[in-house]
C-alpha cells in the first residue's frame, strides 16, 4: 500500500481547546477507492479530526496533505475547493430551498449572468439518476423529504463536484435498515469510482459491513490503523475503550438485574387514566421507590409524550397523578421539580446545559438553585461535590474547569445527568439517555441507573433499544399508538417477547 500516495495524509495533528486537548499528535491516511472507518468513543477526537480536515477548525500543529500537496484549511470553502466533501449527521443543507438548489447551491450553471434554471434541473436529474434517486423531484422542497433522502441529496451535492474525498459523519444514525442498504449501495458505487470515503458511525455492524480499513482514536490520541478484516469486534472495542478483554466481559455483565423486585407498598408515583388531547390517552403507570420502569415502544408511539405529562412540560387534560398516595396536579416543570421529579429529555443540546460555562459552574448552578440563592455553597463543598460527580459519572476530561461546549456528546450527557442528580430527585425520568453515545459510556449510564435505583430512587427509563430497556428495568410498560397496551414483569423476558406484544393486535 505504501507505493500509492494517499489522497489525504494528516501527520502529527494537534488541536487544543482551553482545558481540553482534543487531538494530540494524531496521524491519519486515506487512500483512493477505500472506505475508511474512523473509530473511537465519544470524546476520542473523531469529530475534531473531521473538522480539522474540513476547515471548520484550524490545526495548532501538524500537516495536512491532499494528493501530496500541503494544505492549510482556514474555511470550509477551502477544503471543498481541494476536493473534500462532507455529509454531516444533522443534514447541513437548506430546508427552505428545493432539492435542485441544494445540490447546486453556489455552483449553479449560468447564462449571461443569470442562473440557468433549465440547466440546473437537467444537471440535478443526472446526478440524482447516478445515485438511483430518480423518484426525487428536483423541484420539491428539501424539507418535504425524509432525513434519509436528504442525506442522499447531500451526497449528490458532493458527487456533483466530483469530490475526491467524501466524509460521512454518522450518516446512518436516523436511517432504517432499507435506507442504510440504499446508502451503502451508493457508498460502494462511489468507492468503486475511486472516491476515498471516510465513514464515522457508532454502529459496529455497519462499520464491519462497509469499511475496508479503520483508524482507532482514544482520548485524542492515535491507537492504530487496521485492516477491518484483521480486527475482531472484541479487539476493536478493547482498543476503543482501552481496557482488556476480561474487563470488557465484566462490563457487559455488570448491569444484570440483581435487585429484589419491589411492587408492594405505596408507589412513589401513580397515574390513572392520564391523557392529553391529541397526545396520549389513558395512561396507567406506577413506579415504586427503588424501581426502574422501562417504557418500550416504537419511536413516535408516545413515550416522550408520557414523560412530558409526568414532568408537567405538557398539561394533562384528563386523569390524575398521585405522588406517594396523594393526588397532585402537575401543571408545570416547576411543580414537578417541587415533587422531586427530574427529567433528562432526549434533546440534550436544548436542555439547558450552558455551553460557555465550565463543568463546575454548570453543576454548582443546579446545586445552588436547589438550595435557594440565599445560602451560598462554600468553595470546598463545591469542589468536593463536583469532584465526586466527575468521578462517579466518569466525566472526561476529568477537569472541572473544562467548558461544556468543548466536551463530547456523551460527556455532555453525563454532566446533564449530574446536574439533575445534585438536586436529589426521587423520580428520575431518562428519555433516550444513551442515544448517540458509545458503548463504554452507555454501559456506565446503565450501571448508574442500577445504582441509583438500589439507593432507592425511582427511575422511568425510555429507550428505543429494547435490549437496553430489558437490561435496566424491573417492569416494562409497552406503549403503542399513544396508549399503554401492556405491562410486563421483567423476569426472563426476551426482546422477541416485547416485539410480539408491540406487533400483536395489528392484524
Amino acid at each position, binding site marked *: 500500500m505504501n507505493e500509492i500516495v494517499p489522497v489525504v495524509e494528516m501527520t502529527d495533528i494537534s488541536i487544543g481547546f482551553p482545558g481540553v486537548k482534543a487531538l494530540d499528535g494524531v496521524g491519519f491516511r486515506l487512500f483512493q477507492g477505500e472506505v475508511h472507518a474512523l473509530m473511537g468513543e465519544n470524546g476520542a477526537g473523531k469529530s475534531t479530526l473531521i473538522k480539522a480536515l474540513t476547515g471548520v477548525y484550524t490545526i495548532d500543529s501538524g500537516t495536512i496533505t491532499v494528493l501530496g500537496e500541503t494544505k492549510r484549511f482556514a474555511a470550509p470553502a477551502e477544503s471543498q475547493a481541494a476536493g473534500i466533501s462532507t455529509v454531516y449527521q444533522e443534514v447541513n443543507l437548506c*430546508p*427552505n*430551498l428545493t432539492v435542485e438548489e441544494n445540490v447546486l447551491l453556489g455552483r449553479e450553471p449560468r447564462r449571461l449572468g443569470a442562473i440557468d434554471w433549465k440547466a440546473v434541473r437537467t444537471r440535478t436529474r443526472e446526478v440524482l439518476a447516478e445515485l438511483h434517486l430518480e423518484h426525487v423531484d428536483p423541484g420539491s422542497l428539501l424539507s418535504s423529504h425524509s432525513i434519509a433522502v436528504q442525506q442522499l441529496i447531500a451526497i449528490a451535492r458532493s458527487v456533483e463536484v466530483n469530490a475526491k474525498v467524501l466524509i460521512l459523519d454518522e450518516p446512518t444514525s436516523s436511517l432504517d435498515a432499507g435506507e442504510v442498504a440504499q446508502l451503502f449501495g451508493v457508498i460502494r458505487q462511489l468507492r468503486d469510482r475511486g472516491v476515498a470515503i471516510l465513514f464515522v458511525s457508532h454502529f459496529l455492524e455497519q462499520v464491519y459491513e462497509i469499511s475496508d480499513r479503520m483508524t482507532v482514536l482514544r482520548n485524542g490520541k492515535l491507537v492504530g490503523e487496521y485492516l477491518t478484516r484483521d480486527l475482531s469486534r472484541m479487539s476493536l472495542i478493547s482498543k476503543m475503550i482501552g481496557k482488556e478483554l476480561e474487563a470488557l466481559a465484566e462490563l457487559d455483565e455488570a448491569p444484570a438485574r440483581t435487585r429484589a423486585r419491589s411492587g408492594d407498598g405505596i408507589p412513589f408515583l401513580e397515574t390513572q387514566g392520564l391523557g392529553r388531547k391529541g397526545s396520549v390517552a389513558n395512561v396507567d403507570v406506577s413506579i415504586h421507590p427503588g424501581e426502574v420502569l422501562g417504557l418500550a415502544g416504537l419511536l413516535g408511539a408516545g413515550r416522550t409524550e408520557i414523560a412530558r405529562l409526568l414532568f408537567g412540560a405538557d398539561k394533562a387534560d384528563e386523569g390524575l397523578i398521585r405522588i406517594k398516595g396523594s393526588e397532585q396536579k402537575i401543571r408545570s416543570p416547576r411543580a414537578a421539580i417541587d415533587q422531586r421529579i427530574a427529567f433528562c429529555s432526549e434533546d440534550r443540546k436544548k436542555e439547558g446545559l450552558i455551553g460557555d460555562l465550565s463543568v463546575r459552574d454548570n453543576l454548582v448552578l443546579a446545586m445552588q438553585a436547589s438550595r435557594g440563592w440565599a445560602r451560598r455553597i462554600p468553595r470546598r463543598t463545591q469542589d468536593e461535590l463536583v469532584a465526586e460527580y466527575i468521578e462517579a459519572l466518569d466525566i472526561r476530561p476529568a477537569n472541572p474547569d473544562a467548558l461544556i461546549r468543548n466536551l463530547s456528546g456523551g460527556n455532555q450527557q453525563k454532566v446533564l445527568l449530574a446536574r439533575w442528580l445534585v438536586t436529589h430527585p426521587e423520580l428520575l425520568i431518562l428519555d433516550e439517555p444513551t442515544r448517540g453515545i458509545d458503548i463504554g459510556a452507555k454501559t456506565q449510564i446503565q450501571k448508574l441507573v442500577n445504582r441509583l435505583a438500589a439507593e432507592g430512587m425511582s427511575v422511568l427509563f425510555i429507550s428505543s433499544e429494547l435490549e437496553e430497556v430489558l437490561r435496566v428495568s424491573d417492569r416494562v410498560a409497552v406503549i403503542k399508538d399513544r396508549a399503554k397496551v401492556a405491562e410486563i414483569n421483567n423476569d426472563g423476558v426476551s426482546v422477541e417477547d416485547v416485539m410480539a406484544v408491540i406487533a400483536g393486535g395489528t392484524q
Partner: protein
Amino acid sequence: MSLSSTLARRAAGKTAAPRRQLRGNARYAPTLATLGLFLAMFAVGAGMYPSFLSGQVFLNLFIDNTFLIVLAVGMTFVILTGGIDLSVGAVVALSMMVAATLLQQGWNPAAVIILVLLIGSTLGLAMGLIIHYFDIQPFIVTLAGMFLARGLCYVISLDSIPVTEGFFTGMAQAQIPLPGELFISPGVVLALAIVAAAFFVLHHTRFGRTVYAIGGNENSAMLMGLPVRTTKVLVYVLSGLCSAIAGILFSFYSLSGYSLAAQGMELDAIAAVVIGGTLLTGGTGYVLGSVVGVLVLGIVQTFIAYDGTLSSWWTKIVIGALLLAFILLQRLFTRKTG
C-alpha cells in the same frame, strides 16, 4: 436492536408523511393571503364609495408609496437573511436633509443624488461589517445606525429646508400619462424597476440564492462553502442604498428636508415585508409579496381618507392589527409544517 429500531423508524416515517402536502402549499400561502386581502379591501372600498373603483385610485397607491416600496425591497433582502434593519427611516431623513441642504447651496442635482446614494450605501456597509465581524445582533447595530443618522439630521438643521431646485420640482410635478386618462409619476417607474431588478437578483443569481440559503440555515450555508460573509454584508449595503433612493423619492414627493421626517418609516417597511409573507426568521418570502404588503398599507390609508371622519391614527391601529394577524398566520403555517 436492528429490528426494533427499524420498526421504530418506519413508524416515525409514517407520521411524517402528512406534513409534506401542507409544506408545499404553505410556501406561497402567506403571500397569496395578502394578495387576497388586498383584493377584498379594494372590493369593499368600491362597494362603499363608488369613486373608489377607479384606476387612478389604484395607481395612486403606487404614487404615494414609491419610497416605501423601495425601502421594502431593501428590507426584504435583509429579513430574508434573518436580519433586520432599523436604520432605514433615519437614513431616508438624512438623505432628504443632505439633498435639501446641498441643493439650497446650489449643487448640481446629479452630484447631490450620487453623494446621497454613496452616504446611504456607506452607512449600510459599516453596519453590515460590524454585524458580521463582531457578530452582534443586527437589531442593536442598526438601532445605533438609526440614532447616528437621525442625530446627523439635527446637526444639519433643526428646521425644515424647502427644495426649490428645478429638477426636483420638475420630478414632483411630472406625470407620465397612461391610456384611459390615467397617469403615474416617474418615481413609480423607478420603484417598479428596482422591484424588477430585486426579483431578478433574488431568483436568478447566486447572490440571491445565497441570501435565501443564509436565512434557511446560516451554518449549513457556511459549511456548503457559500460566500456567507460577503452576502451578509452586501445585504445591508443594499438596504442602505435603497434607503437613500427612497430618501430621494421622498424628496421628490415632499419637496423639503426635515429632521423629523420619515419617523417610524422603518417599522412601516418591516410591516409591509412581513404582511407580504416574508418570514421574520428568514429564508422564505418574495419581494413581490412585499410590494403587495405596501399596497395593503396604502389602501388602509386610502380607506381612512375616504371615510373622512376617522382620525388618521386609525391607520396605525389597523396596520398593527394586520401585522399581528399575519405573524400569527405565519406561526400557524410554520408550526404545521414542523
